[in-house]
């Protein structure tokens, strides 16, 4: 068996094992479905309403991606500012940290007040919750470029801009990609928080309405769907990371 299939088997095996354990525990201890449904019941609850569920899932997915997209742009710009300029660093860091400490769930009512219920507050919550790790990582990456690397270029006659694009940007890419994996999962959290509080679309809304009808299996079905979408997008960025900045990881295990 090659090491790759071996790794995949471990990863898949652990997940399958968790679900088997869950299923068996529920059946063995006869836990009623309105307390904790078995995974089979959760999945079964999705099937009769599949068409509706797909619509909600799509809503959550694109809302998350929109918020995440804004977060990437804003995060990179702010991170570049904080990471390259001392005054901006001093000025912006306390504000950013303070802002990040505010629970985003508490902001949803404010956003609803400004933009009404629905998609816009969900996009904004996803953005607000996910841009901070991008800022911090981009700033850290840019600030950790060894000065000698830049000096090598500067004494060859490079401008500051050229030294930035040829050294600082590639050097910070691993930091950037690491933050994307954190940010994309956070963006899902933001979207769902907002949908639960103030929306008539999305998995968050599906779960609140299911829960108000005591349809606990469907609540768990929604949770499973969010987890699956989260894993899928995480995987997309993990693969992109391997492709684009694999040098940063191969250097450790080669």
């Amino acid at each position, binding site marked *: 068996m090659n090491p790759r299939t071996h790794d995949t088997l471990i990863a898949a095996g652990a997940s399958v094992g968790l679900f088997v354990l869950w299923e068996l525990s529920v059946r063995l201890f006869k836990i009623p479905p309105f307390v904790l449904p078995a995974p089979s019941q959760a999945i079964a609850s999705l099937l009769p309403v599949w068409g509706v569920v797909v619509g909600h899932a799509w809503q959550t997915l694109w809302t998350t991606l929109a918020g995440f997209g804004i977060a990437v742009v804003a995060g990179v710009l702010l991170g570049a500012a904080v990471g390259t300029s001392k005054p901006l660093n001093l000025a912006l860091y306390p504000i950013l940290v303070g802002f990040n400490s505010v629970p985003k769930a508490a902001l949803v009512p404010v956003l609803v007040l400004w933009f009404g219920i629905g998609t816009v507050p969900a996009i904004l919550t996803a953005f607000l919750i996910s841009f901070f790790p991008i800022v911090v990582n981009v700033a850290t990456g840019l600030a950790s470029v060894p000065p000698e690397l830049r*000096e090598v270029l500067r*004494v*060859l006659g490079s401008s500051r801009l050229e030294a930035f694009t040829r050294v600082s940007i*590639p050097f910070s890419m691993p930091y950037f990609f690491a933050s994307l994996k954190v940010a994309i999962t956070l963006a899902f959290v933001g979207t769902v928080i907002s949908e639960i509080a103030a929306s008539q679309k999305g998995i968050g809304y599906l779960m609140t309405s299911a829960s108000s009808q005591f349809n606990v299996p469907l609540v768990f079905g929604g949770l499973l769907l969010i987890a699956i979408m989260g894993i899928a997008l995480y995987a997309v960025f993990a693969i992109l990371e391997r492709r684009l*900045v694999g040098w940063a990881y191969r*250097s450790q295990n*080669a």
Partner: protein
Amino acid sequence: MPFIELSNVSLRYDNGYLAVEGVNLSIAQGEFVALVGPSGCGKSTLLRVISGLRPPSSGQATVHGQVVRGPIAGIGMAFQNPTLMPWRTILQNILLPLEVSARHKQQYRQNPKPYIEAARELMASVGLAGFENAHVWELSGGMQQRASLCRALIHQPEILMLDEPFSALDAFTREELWQAMQVLYMSRKPTVILVTHDLREAVYLSDTIYTMSTRPGKIAYARRVEFPRPRALELTYEDEFAHIVKELREQIGGMRTQISGLKGVGA
């Protein structure tokens, strides 16, 4: 007229600490100069002043008769760490100066072949043949340092600044690289400024050695080394060689005693 000249250069850091004071130095074109001295005597700082990476607080540096006011282009630099870029292969790392230096940029872009050939030859001359497409992490520290020297030389710089490039290597690799460095120097005759703690290294490679005193750094002593090149490694075991090393050691030893005397410890 000297090629590189420092006149009365002092440099004070932002925190008020005086790193170097009143340094006068003139270096001829094609001369191999070593700066030796205790840690913190401002050797590396002087390199940065000459290359224009750091403006002096007073005095001035001139290169080619022109006052240095910003980073001067076309210098080759090598540091204690190889500072290679892990996102590039070894050959790509070595070719980097050609991509950015104004003198080569255009020609390299239009016709990279002869340059790549030159890079391969340079790599072969320091024992890196066959590692063109290797990644940085696949090479040992000594081999990375060889690649770093190749990068410092590929664009045929008139000035080569070596900031303790051999100090992190084991003794055998270090001596091998001294020889490689000598070969490279003899074939191209750049003006070299080597910063080092290693007196044998300084005597083996240089034409002139300057010792520096510390806090603030000043040029304390100059010593010419007249051994003809190529110098064999066996030379380092001969009496005349050992004599120069000892002479320099005593110079620096004298300074160190003074320092510890001032602090009231030992001496």
